[in-house]
């Protein structure tokens, strides 16, 4: 089963057009070229679409790096699983 960071890697790779990119938990907009205010809305939408979850502004406001995005995504998924 695909891990969250693998899914994020796939999404970043596709939207930023960077085949072979390998995301680390410490990566952030400062270390990933192309992760900026132009691409971020699409990245977030793609994660939501793929996993059928939804992020709100307060949640996104706390995202500093990949680790935060993985943690938020996983917590959304586990919340959804608990509701089912």
């Amino acid at each position, binding site marked *: 089963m695909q891990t969250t960071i693998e899914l994020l890697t796939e999404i970043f790779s596709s939207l930023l057009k960077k085949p072979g990119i390998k995301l680390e938990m410490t990566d952030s907009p400062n270390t990933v070229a192309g992760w900026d*205010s132009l691409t971020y*809305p699409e990245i977030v*939408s793609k994660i939501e679409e793929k996993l059928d979850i939804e992020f709100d*502004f307060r949640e996104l406001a706390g995202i500093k790096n990949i680790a935060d995005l993985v943690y938020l995504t996983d917590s959304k998924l586990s919340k959804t699983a608990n509701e089912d």
Partner: protein
Amino acid sequence: MPSEIQIRNAVDSDIEFVIETIVQSEKGDGDSISYCRLFNIDEDEFRKVSRKILKAGISNFEFSLSNFKIVELAGLQVAAYGAWLEGLDGVSSGMLKISAFRTFLSKGNMAYYKSSATVVDEITIKRKPGIFQFESIYILEEFRGKHIGNMLVQSLINELATKHPAVTSAHVQVIKQNSVSLQAHVKYGFQIIEEKSSLNPEILNFYLGNTRVLMEKKLR
């Protein structure tokens, strides 16, 4: 200067005045709001979205209520200005802003942004972390020329510098052709340190002019 003048931090009841501040500051010498052009929304929609963002209570970007100071005279709001320390919690103001608009606007608006932002991006100057950022000033017309803008700048700097004493400079970005704002900031002690221009005529669909300037005020 009127003696009963007060400068205070913005509170929830100031939201409408802060929205007016953002709108009027955006319009400058003209009549257009760049956000409306960027997302293909009208002024009413922009005001609605701004209200939602301000109410969310997130700090350290252009739409943070807690970053605004209000000038009050005899119980009336007459001026406002916002400032924050860039990147304080490890997230840039640019990311906060786009996260906010993405949350409160439709997919259609965001798709429009994808194409329009590439035009605007030509004169975007990335904000530097660890520097105070000023954005959105508005003074009611009848209160201009009374040094209120300077008082606001000083008040914001004093408060921010008390919290963050290691910071050595403050920045503001202005469209160069917005001569009123440019000259006002020169009077407040800011100097131009960087310019970015676009030769794409489409830039004028978004801004009053084709050049953005970064102005700096040294704090010591």
